C-alpha cells in the first residue's frame, strides 16, 4: 500500500490532472505554511497573508492542467503566490507596516531577536532594527525584494528563484546583492 504522504508533488499534481482532485489536499497541507509565510513577508498582515495564500491554492488547483511538469511543482506554485503578492502590493501601494507594532506576533519576533541577551536595551534595539529592516524591504523595488525574500526567508536556490521570477540566475544574483547591500546600509547603526 502506497503512503500518500510519500508521493512526490509532481505525482500528486498528475493525479489531480486526471480528475483525482482530492489529492490536492495533500499539497495544501504540504505547502500551506510556506505559502502563508511568503505572503506574510510581503504583506506583514496575517489576515491578508492568509487570504492571498489560500487564493494561490485555489488558482493552482483551477489551473492544475497547465502544470506541465517541466519545472518542479513548488517552483510553479511559488510563482503563483509571488505574483498574487506583487499584484496585491501594486494595488495597495503601501504595506501596512504600522499595524506591525500592535501585533502579538511582532512582539514575539522582537523577543526572538533579543533572546540571546534578554536585556531591555537589546530588546529595544532588536525591535528597532527589525522595523528598519521591514521599512527597507518595503522601499525596495519589487524584484529585489522578491529575490531576497525567496532566498533569505524561504531558502530557495538562486536557480529556483530564477525560474519563479522567469529571469536569469545572473539577474537574481544582482537583485540579491543589491537587496543585502540596501539592508546592510539601513542597519549599519543597529548591529
Amino acid at each position, binding site marked *: 500500500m502506497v503512503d500518500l504522504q510519500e508521493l512526490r508533488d509532481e505525482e500528486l499534481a498528475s493525479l489531480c490532472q486526471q480528475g483525482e*482532485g482530492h489529492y490536492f489536499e495533500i499539497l*495544501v497541507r504540504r505547502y500551506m505554511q510556506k505559502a502563508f509565510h511568503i505572503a506574510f513577508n510581503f504583506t506583514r498582515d496575517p489576515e491578508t497573508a492568509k487570504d492571498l495564500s489560500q487564493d494561490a491554492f485555489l488558482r493552482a488547483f483551477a489551473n492544475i492542467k497547465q502544470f506541465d511538469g517541466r519545472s518542479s511543482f513548488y517552483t510553479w506554485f511559488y510563482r503563483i503566490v509571488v505574483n498574487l503578492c506583487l499584484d496585491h502590493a501594486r494595488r495597495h501601494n503601501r504595506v501596512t507596516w504600522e499595524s506591525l507594532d500592535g501585533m502579538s506576533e511582532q512582539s514575539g*519576533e522582537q523577543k526572538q531577536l533579543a533572546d540571546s541577551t534578554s536585556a531591555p536595551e537589546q530588546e529595544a*534595539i532588536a525591535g528597532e532594527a527589525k522595523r528598519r529592516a521591514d521599512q527597507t524591504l518595503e522601499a525596495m523595488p519589487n524584484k529585489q525584494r522578491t529575490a531576497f525574500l525567496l532566498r533569505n526567508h524561504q531558502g530557495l*536556490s538562486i536557480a529556483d528563484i530564477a525560474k519563479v521570477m522567469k529571469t536569469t540566475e545572473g539577474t537574481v544574483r544582482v537583485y540579491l546583492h543589491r537587496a543585502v*547591500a540596501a539592508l546592510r546600509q539601513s542597519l549599519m*547603526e543597529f*548591529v
Partner: protein
Amino acid sequence: MAHRKPLQSACKTFEEDLVLYYYGETGDDERRRVNQHLAECISCQGFVEDLRRLLPQIAKSAQMPPSFWDEYYRETVAKLAQQEARKHWWRALFAPRQIWMVPAFGTVAVAILVVGLLFGKGNLNSFMHRTSERIPQEILADENQLQFFESMDLLESLGTLEKQDDHNADSTNTQSSRVRQQHAVA
C-alpha cells in the same frame, strides 16, 4: 553601547561574491577564491560575520499556533470544494444519481412540442395541411415544374372541353331525335 558596532565594509570587488558565499551559492572555484581572500582580509571576514548575525534575524517570521494551521487547512479545503461546485454545477444535473431525470426531461420536451404545435400553430391538422399545401408552391418555383403544372392545367381544360363537347353532342343528338319524332308525328 559596547555591543553595538558598525557593519564591516567589504572589498568592493568581493562584496557580491561574499553575499553568494554566505548563501552557499558559489561554485567550487569561486568558493576557493573567496576562502583564500577571507584568510587575508579582516574587513571581508567582518562583513560575512555581520551577514551571519543579521540576515537570519530578518528572516524570522510570524509563528502561528497549531490551531491556526488546522483552521487554515479546513478553510482552504472548503474553498476548493466550493470552487469545484461552482465550476461543475451543470455536471450535477446529469450526475448518475439523477439519471431518472433524463426520461422526465424527454417527456417534458415532447409535451412542450405538442402543446406548441397545437396552440402555437392553431392545430396539428391545419399545420400539417399547410405544410402539404406549401409543397406545390415550392415546386412551381422551378421552371420545368411550372411548365408541367401548366400542361396539367391544359389537360384538365381539355378534359373539360371534351366533357362539354360530349355534353353538347348529347344535347344535339337529343334535339335531332326530337325533331325526327316531331317530323314523324307530322
